């Protein structure tokens, strides 16, 4: 049932790891500068990946059309990233290097990412910082005027660049300003409040997209020479996640249905430091930056069900379980490990708070050591955010946190050029599966999004475009009308169900199933039941959902309904992927496969590969292909943070 597919040619260049990217750049086919303006490139998404790519492609001379769901490209979900962005600048002289960043990322991903991609990422990381500073990103600085760094997300060197707690916002505004400069120059045409709902294929190549205009509800068609998907991650499939409410999988799901394989769909990241769930009315979960773990200590009472307020529990009756289990990394253990540890103590009955599903993150010791003023300087905005949401003052009592879905390492399978298995269709940023393996390290998603957008895609795309000259195809081609009809038919189908349950209700139920069975701990039986539960929930959705309103008008509920319909299919694929990967690695923890002391037990013999799923039709089981991962530069070892 799994095949090591010849169709999954990652096209990794020859040569030493260090030389692959420069060799590759030297051998890529180029498009004559005078001809570039004859090409049209569609970029869907205006986050770090899409915004940077659209701006850079336009600078190179291509004609670009840029699409996003929000009313402005500046609001893409990248804006919400708090902590920072990694780069191997070694400005702190603390032993960092391209190799070390590469190694940390490969190890952090539990040896399930491609060496060549990750090394390229580490190499490009330094140019990203240069580019952002030139574009006016006000990174934090030292008194001497040089850039400041901090250590983040479990790294043992200080390589994270940041702009207060708003790094994502500042990087995005940098990319956005570059994009608007190209709009000004007439080389980018901007389409906001558009949702891509179909990919248009002509003669086996990606040649355009169909969008719904979210203001008028009209269905629109756009033709191009290549299509780039930078639509972000899909952890909103869990309903409650740290992602923005409009994040969705619809664009990549459409591509999947047209033959773009889906890589490692079950690899999701559950972030350890989020505000705990409170009730059914909650719309999303709030992330508390991981930087808090630099000074906060995580603990639960040593006695089950201890209901005393935290300040009444003496030191000797507290279990600082991360420090106990992982003395070397302590509270800074990687995300997957910290999250699972929290779940374990709560499942065992030691959790705190009204639901018993949260743990303390305590700054008491840090306040004593550093003074409240220092803590306020470091985390003031996070503390006030926490205070506002919970009505509890974290300077007086410990925060309560619990893990929440946060990031998806899975996504469209791409080769070294970022091309999917569909010719002319590219995927970048969180939308692809590429660089983080089974677990992403903190501050490396921003790095990957910008590496893909500023440097990789604009270089590699010419290899394809040079071979596929503009042929005069326009959106008048019959293929576009056929795709438009599919989109309108689907909208009609959704609206005509006219049942009794709301979209939100279905999304919530799907989220429960995934959280329980395809969340932090997974096992054979649970995954099988998740698959059948999702199937029946999907059936129920198409029989009983109530949306209201019309297709040809502004209708947010309809937008959400379409996204949830896709999530109801994607959720099943996630469960299938998790079921077939009979090992534990990174964020994918199968309870059947663990070491004696409860750590993830990889099976390199049988699963040192990427699983890429190929759509086989409406109710057919998708085909699982594999791309084996060859490690020539690092030795596979059991990850240890003890």
């Amino acid at each position, binding site marked *: 049932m799994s095949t090591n597919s010849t169709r999954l040619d990652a096209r990794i260049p020859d040569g030493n790891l260090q030389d692959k990217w420069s060799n590759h750049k030297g051998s890529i086919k180029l498009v004559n500068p005078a001809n570039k303006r004859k090409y049209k490139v569609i970029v869907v998404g205006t986050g770090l990946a899409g915004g940077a790519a659209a*701006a*850079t492609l336009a*600078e190179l001379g291509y004609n670009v059309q840029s699409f996003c769901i*929000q*009313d*402005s490209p*500046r*609001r893409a979900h990248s*804006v*919400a990233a708090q902590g920072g962005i990694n780069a191997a*600048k070694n400005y702190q002289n603390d032993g960092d290097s391209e190799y070390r960043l590469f190694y940390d990322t490969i190890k952090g991903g539990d040896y399930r990412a491609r060496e060549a991609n990750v090394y390229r990422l580490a190499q490009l990381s330094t*140019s990203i910082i*240069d*580019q952002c*500073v*030139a*574009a*006016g990103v*006000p*990174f934090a*600085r030292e008194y001497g*005027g*040089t850039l400041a760094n901090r250590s983040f997300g479990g790294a043992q060197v200080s390589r994270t660049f940041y*702009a*207060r707690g708003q790094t*994502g*916002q*500042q990087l995005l505004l940098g990319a*956005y*300003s*570059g994009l*608007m*400069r190209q*709009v*000004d120059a007439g080389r980018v045409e*901007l389409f*906001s409040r558009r949702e891509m709902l179909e990919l248009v294929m002509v003669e086996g190549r990606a040649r355009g997209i169909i969008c719904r205009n979210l*203001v008028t509800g009209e269905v629109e068609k756009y033709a191009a020479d290549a299509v780039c998907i930078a639509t972000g991650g899909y952890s909103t499939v869990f309903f409650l996640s740290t992602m*923005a*409410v*409009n994040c969705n999988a619809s664009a990549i799901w459409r591509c999947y249905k047209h033959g773009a394989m889906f890589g490692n769909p079950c690899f999701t990241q559950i972030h350890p430091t989020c505000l705990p769930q*409170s*009730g059914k*009315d909650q*719309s999303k979960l*709030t*992330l508390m930056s991981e930087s808090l773990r630099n000074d906060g200590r995580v603990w639960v009472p040593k006695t089950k069900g201890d209901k005393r307020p935290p300040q009444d529990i003496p030191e000797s009756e507290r279990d600082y379980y991360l420090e106990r289990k992982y003395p070397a990394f302590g509270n800074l253990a990687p995300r997957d490990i910290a999250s699972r540890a929290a779940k374990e103590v709560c499942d065992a009955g030691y959790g705190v708070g009204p639901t018993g599903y949260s743990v303390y993150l305590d700054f008491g010791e840090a306040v004593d050591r550093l003074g409240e003023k220092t803590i306020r300087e470091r985390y003031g905005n996070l503390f006030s*955010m926490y205070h*506002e*949401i919970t*009505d509890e003052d974290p300077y007086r009592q410990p925060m309560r946190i619990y893990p929440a879905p946060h990031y998806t390492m899975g996504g469209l399978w791409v080769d070294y050029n970022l091309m999917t298995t569909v010719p002319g269709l590219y995927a970048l940023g969180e939308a692809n599966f590429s660089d983080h393996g089974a677990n992403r390290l903190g501050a490396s998603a921003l790095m990957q999004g910008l590496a893909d957008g500023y*440097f990789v895609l604009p270089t590699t795309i010419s290899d394809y475009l040079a071979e596929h000259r503009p042929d005069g195809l326009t959106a008048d081609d019959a293929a576009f009308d056929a795709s438009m009809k599919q989109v309108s038919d689907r909208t009609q189908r959704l609206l005509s169900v006219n049942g009794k349950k*709301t*979209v*939100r209700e279905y999304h919530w139920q799907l989220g429960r199933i995934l959280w329980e069975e395809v969340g932090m701990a997974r096992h054979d039986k649970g995954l099988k039941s998740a698959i059948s539960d999702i199937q029946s929930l999907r059936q129920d959705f198409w029989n009983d959902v*109530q*949306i209201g*309103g019309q297709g040809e*008008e*502004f209708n947010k509920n309809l937008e959400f309904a379409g996204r949830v319909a896709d999530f109801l299919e994607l959720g099943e694929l996630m469960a299938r992927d998790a079921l077939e990967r009979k090992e534990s690695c990174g964020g994918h923890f199968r309870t059947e496969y663990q070491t004696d002391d409860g750590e993830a037990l990889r099976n390199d013999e049988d699963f040192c590969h990427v699983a890429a799923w190929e759509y086989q039709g409406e109710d057919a089981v998708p085909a699982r292909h594999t791309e084996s991962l060859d490690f020539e530069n690092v030795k596979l070892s059991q990850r240890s943070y003890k």
Partner: protein
Amino acid sequence: MKFTLNVWRQEGPTASGRFEDYQVTDIAPEMSFLEMLDALNEQLVQQGKRAVEFDSDCREGICGTCGLVINGKAHGPKQACTTCELRMRHYSDGSTITVEPFRATGFPVIRDLVVDRSAFDRIIAAGGYISTNTGSAPDANAIPIAKAIAEKAMDSAACIGCGACVAACPNASASLFVGAKLNQLSLLPQGEAERGRRAVRMVEQMDAEGFGNCSNHGECEAACPKEISIKVISRMRRDALRASFGRL
């Protein structure tokens, strides 16, 4: 908790709008204002009625998508707080709350509480950037920038582009928004080369979009969820004026 909501409903840009009353019950104090509206919409959809349209995305105060005028105040009563961050515990149980869109000539209503803020994008396109092509940058530490300057630039760069400044201003001026961007870029050495041209073009575009003039009411600063100082406006004026005389 329960509330009576007095909500602005408007079918489309050209339709005339009206207020409608709704009751919501079972609202928990820790719910956000938008979660409360979610609850209202669940209720409306179940009754087969059209949901109240409103914009939001990040729901944590950083994307600038949300924005409502609540009881006459842009983003509600709390300082330095966006609509999505506002919690219901700030309202007394049983009270009546009026909810309107951000109104301004430059922000036409699309539907209900959703407005069109694309004018802001066009203002940024008129020079709100530093002209640098990808790949051409020198090493990031090549030009030192004093910490205090970087911090000031960051204060201005914190703008989320929500438009509360416009909604709060009696003249519906966008000066705080424009001033913030100009201030950020002109403080940084990288932005110096285009400083004058940028100021002139962005101010011209702001006027062309139908935003009013600033007459120093200061309502913008009070409404700004990111507490951007009104000082950025005087700097904007100075730069635009000096540049128009060719002195910048």
